[in-house]
């Protein structure tokens, strides 16, 4: 809301709007030009990771809609199950390649430490998301993994809350809370990259 003279007021919405306009202008958020050094395959790893995440989410939504009998017993279900599994493999392979690339060019330079740290947290949350996925398969492998993991998880001290033998809890975390966390973190990561621009190579 503006005052009679058209000057912005000191309300929190106006302050938030001014901050967003200053730190994330549209030309930064949706750029049509990139610096010369972005023309390298190393910069493609992050984009492939996002593409894999989209496939993970889409195939996961289908699996959640139809359920374990479908994904174990029908041809279409087994196909979508495999699509989900292999897109996760692609997601992790390219996330680690992206990590190597950004590590060797020290991407935390020039005020980009928050971008780097959000990437680190995304990696950690993704590992938990994948782990709960292995526990949600509804087969003997899932039971084997849960039984073997319980002592390790208990030894960390989180076993009182994070019970790998509790299928309902693991499945709920896997299809609801952890995907929301990963998607939100990736969104924040991309916003941070757009705010500060792609890190230039080391001189």
């Amino acid at each position, binding site marked *: 809301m503006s005052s009679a003279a058209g000057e912005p007021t000191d309300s929190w919405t106006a302050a938030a709007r001014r901050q967003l306009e200053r730190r994330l202008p549209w030309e930064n958020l949706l750029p049509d*030009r990139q610096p*010369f050094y972005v023309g*390298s*395959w190393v910069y493609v*790893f992050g984009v492939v990771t996002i593409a894999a995440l989209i496939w993970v989410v889409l195939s996961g939504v289908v699996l959640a809609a139809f359920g374990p009998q479908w994904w174990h017993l029908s041809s279409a279900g087994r196909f979508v199950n495999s699509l989900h599994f292999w897109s996760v493999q692609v997601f992790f*392979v390219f996330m680690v*390649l992206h990590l*190597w*690339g950004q590590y060797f060019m020290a991407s935390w330079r020039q005020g980009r430490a928050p971008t780097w740290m959000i990437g680190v947290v995304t990696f950690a949350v993704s590992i938990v998301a994948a782990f709960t996925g292995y526990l949600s398969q509804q087969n003997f492998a899932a039971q084997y993994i849960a039984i073997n993991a319980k002592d390790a998880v208990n030894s960390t001290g989180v076993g009182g809350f994070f019970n790998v033998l509790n299928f309902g809890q693991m499945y709920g975390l896997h299809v609801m809370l952890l995907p929301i966390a990963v998607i939100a973190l990736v969104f924040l990561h991309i916003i941070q990259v757009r705010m500060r621009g792609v890190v230039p190579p080391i001189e």
Partner: protein
Amino acid sequence: MDQPAGYLHWGFILISWPNLLVIGLMVVLFGLALVLPFPGHSSSVNEEKKP
């Protein structure tokens, strides 16, 4: 396929062959990304290109 994977056991290193293969392929892919030319990429250092 439905049996435990074989393992490489070399001193203190213990890793399954499939995991070692994936890591090897990732290292090769990383090396290729560094050396392969990017399509539409000219040699001018200061020029800005559309993505």
